[in-house]
């Protein structure tokens, strides 16, 4: 291991009303990948934002490359050699790759920009990383995974020796993650220190050397990754033993509730047939872009379908728009909570009431606030939504609690089929278990649960039956307790013959 390049001691940061960081210590050496772990709200991102100059600290010392710094700005941090890749992609999507990479430090001759020079250098950096992107391409036209690569290239173009990655893999496919890991290993070999923040604990083994664990704004422990067991890590993160990471509830499989026949909608939903039964959770596995989200949207009526039948209790229901689906009792907790699931600027109360206004309004469309209160109280109580009041904005909740609000919107309606699309993305271990418990609860109540997830362990751990999709088709169906990850993966990569050539 190399020498210590970043040392943060007794860092304190207070936001109005919250002590975000309380005497936190952190050390990073050159040539290592340090995983910074903790639940949401543990202060990981805040700590890293202080290191990269986005926030200023209220107390403590910060030494980078042996020099002590008082306050940094993002620009100053860049000059020192600290670069951060933020959790939310931070690109100007209207500008080109090269323009983004050089934003804020453009090369100029006199007052004129030297575009070709910047493009050449961008091209060289991308080439070094073996990333195949044209620097003149507009960033907004690139897929998210490529945008992520551009962010990394941008961070490196400032000759960063300390690279902070905040949830870099949350939107990448398995293949792209391998690509990212290849780049991380290369940087490590070049002597960079890398801070890696991720909720996907299973991917740590592939790259991480050391871990630092935080909880509730406090430093808990650090150590070599190899010396710790996963159980120890999780226990330190959540501060309590999690008995079961994937609590499974068994209950007898009942009658068929829901059936989809020959559903077609665009290229990613082709001839989909499946059924859901009472008392079971059906997992949908597959790679990113396999068409699972598209299938859920087509069922829910959010996207138009070209053909196909949807049957509820043996009777066909016509679904042309989400309202049809909701009325029939088929509801969707969409993939992107903040974008599709919630009105983040509205209160929890308004969010919970939104799809149920028909139930709580009188004939003239005036909201009965008594009924609204009852509805909200029940949702908060049943789903254990942790919030001081239902009047606060949905944006201010943690990811797990936001997800509960999304689900809570639907539970007042006696829904028959609940579709979860990536319900645990970006939420921490403890909250994940609560979401699993929620799904189990629905399952016990006889509601059909469709559970789309890209995290293989949770699909196999929670679902009873797993349907695997690839390329918009269903390529396999397995019982969760009798299968292996490899078998699911085999189905998930069963591309059509004529396409196989393009895929690899």
């Amino acid at each position, binding site marked *: 291991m190399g020498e210590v390049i970043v040392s943060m001691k007794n860092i304190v940061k207070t936001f109005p009303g919250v002590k975000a960081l309380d005497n936190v210590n952190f050390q990073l050496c050159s040539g290592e990948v340090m995983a910074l772990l903790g639940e949401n709200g543990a202060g990981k991102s805040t700590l890293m934002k202080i290191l990269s100059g986005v926030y200023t600290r209220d107390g403590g010392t910060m030494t980078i490359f042996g020099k002590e710094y008082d306050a940094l700005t993002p620009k100053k941090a860049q000059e020192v050699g600290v670069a951060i890749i933020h959790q939310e992609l*931070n690109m*100007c999507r209207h*500008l080109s790759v090269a323009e983004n990479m050089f934003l*804020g430090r453009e090369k100029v001759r006199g007052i004129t920009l030297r575009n070709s020079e910047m493009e050449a250098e961008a091209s060289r950096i991308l080439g070094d990383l073996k990333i195949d992107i044209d620097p003149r391409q507009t960033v907004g036209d690139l897929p998210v995974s490529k945008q992520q690569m551009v962010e990394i290239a941008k961070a490196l173009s400032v000759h960063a020796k300390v690279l902070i990655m905040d949830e870099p893999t949350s939107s990448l496919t398995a293949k792209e993650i391998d690509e990212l890991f290849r780049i991380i290993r290369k940087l490590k070999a070049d002597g960079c220190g890398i801070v890696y923040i991720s909720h996907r604990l299973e991917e740590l083994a592939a790259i991480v050397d050391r871990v630092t664990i935080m909880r509730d704004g406090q430093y808990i422990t650090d150590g070599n990754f190899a010396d710790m067991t996963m159980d120890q890590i999780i226990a330190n993160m959540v501060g309590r033993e999690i008995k079961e990471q994937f609590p499974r509830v068994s209950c007898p499989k009942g009658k068929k509730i829901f059936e989809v026949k020959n559903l077609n909608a665009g290229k990613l939903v082709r001839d989909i047939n499946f059924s859901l039964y009472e008392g079971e959770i059906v997992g949908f596995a597959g790679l990113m872009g396999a068409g699972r989200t598209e299938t859920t949207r087509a069922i829910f009526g959010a996207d138009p379908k070209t053909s196909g039948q949807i049957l509820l209790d043996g009777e066909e229901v016509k679904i042309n728009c989400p309202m049809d689906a909701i009325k029939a009792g088929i509801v969707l907790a969409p993939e992107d909570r903040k974008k599709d699931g919630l009105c983040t600027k509205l209160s929890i109360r308004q969010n919970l009431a939104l799809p149920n206004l028909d139930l709580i309004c009188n004939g003239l469309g005036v909201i009965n606030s008594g009924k609204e209160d009852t509805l909200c109280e029940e949702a908060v109580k049943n789903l254990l939504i942790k919030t001081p009041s239902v009047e606060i904005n949905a944006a201010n909740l943690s990811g797990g609690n936001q997800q509960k609000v999304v689900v809570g919107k639907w539970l007042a309606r006696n829904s028959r089929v609940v579709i979860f699309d990536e319900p645990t993305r970006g939420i921490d271990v403890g909250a994940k278990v609560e979401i699993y418990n929620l799904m189990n609860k629905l399952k016990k109540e006889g509601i059909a649960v469709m559970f789309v997830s890209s995290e293989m362990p949770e699909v196999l751990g929670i679902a009873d039956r797993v349907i695997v999709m690839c390329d918009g088709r269903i390529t396999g169906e397995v019982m969760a307790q009798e299968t292996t990850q490899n078998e699911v993966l085999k189905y998930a990569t069963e591309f059509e013959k004529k396409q196989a050539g393009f895929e690899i």
Partner: protein
Amino acid sequence: MNEKKQSTMKRLLGTRGMGAVLTAFAGLIIIYIAFGLIDRNVFSGQNVMNLLRSMSKYLLIGVGQSYLLITGNIDLSIGSMVGMSAMISATLMTMGIHPVAAMMVAMACCLICGVVNGILVGKFKLPPFIATLGTMFVTRGAAYMVNNNRNTDAIATGIGKEAGDSFQNFFYYGKTLGIFNTFWIALILFLVFFFLLSKTRTGRHIYAIGSNVDAAKLSGVNVVYTTIKAYLVSAVCSCVVGFILCAQAGMGNMEAGNMYEMYGVAAGVIGGISPLGGTGLLLGTFAGAAVWQTLENGLNMIGAQVGIQRLVIGIIVVFSVLLDVVVRSGSFGKKAAQ
């Protein structure tokens, strides 16, 4: 050499937003020819000269407003700044002060306005619509107060006759190389601001903060300064348009420039500048201003009434944006299919 030329050409056509610009120019040609077929006088040299002169105002206003639209903001105070500039310069000239000095005072006032707008929006994060709504009323109020709530007398009378005449000549009535000075002034300013936006660091930052202000800030872009610079551009443009209106009327009119900020939005939007920020080319604004003026001019020539003119222009604005939306959603559909 030829190859290099070709690649430059290709690159130019491949510039983001060039499609909308070409569409606007195509629209311009169609509109112009259509009016010309109805009334041959539209094609006359005299009319072309007048057209160029009248579009100059819209071009300048459009350039100013486009800078703000690209940053994702708006400047509602443009029209009032035009009025203030016209009133201040006219009042001072009627008092016998040299036009250059009068113009400098007017320009200084407009620049202060621009800085205030920029600070309110960039530093204090006021919604630009509200901040510039405020300065809009303040500057219009100032325009009224300059000459005690009255329009000024003619600027080219009495002791200032000679200076006033030369001012009017320089900004409106005179010609250079056979084309009205007004157009030359607008063209030069257009080229300067075109260069600033497309070739300099400031221009790049203007696009960046319009595209994603957080990303720009985290990349080390000074958002406050950049916002102020954008508002200064619209202040400069408005001020010069004030001089033009003052020269045209030969006096200061308190209501000069009324609604011009919206003409600026229209010119930009017709030329493909997104009011949501981040995209658009000033060439489009040029086309937009020309489309606007050609419509106004053509409808005038064929004897349409003001009501009809407004109505047609309104439809064109909505239609051009609608076209953009349809084309864009079409191209998105194609991408999904790939």
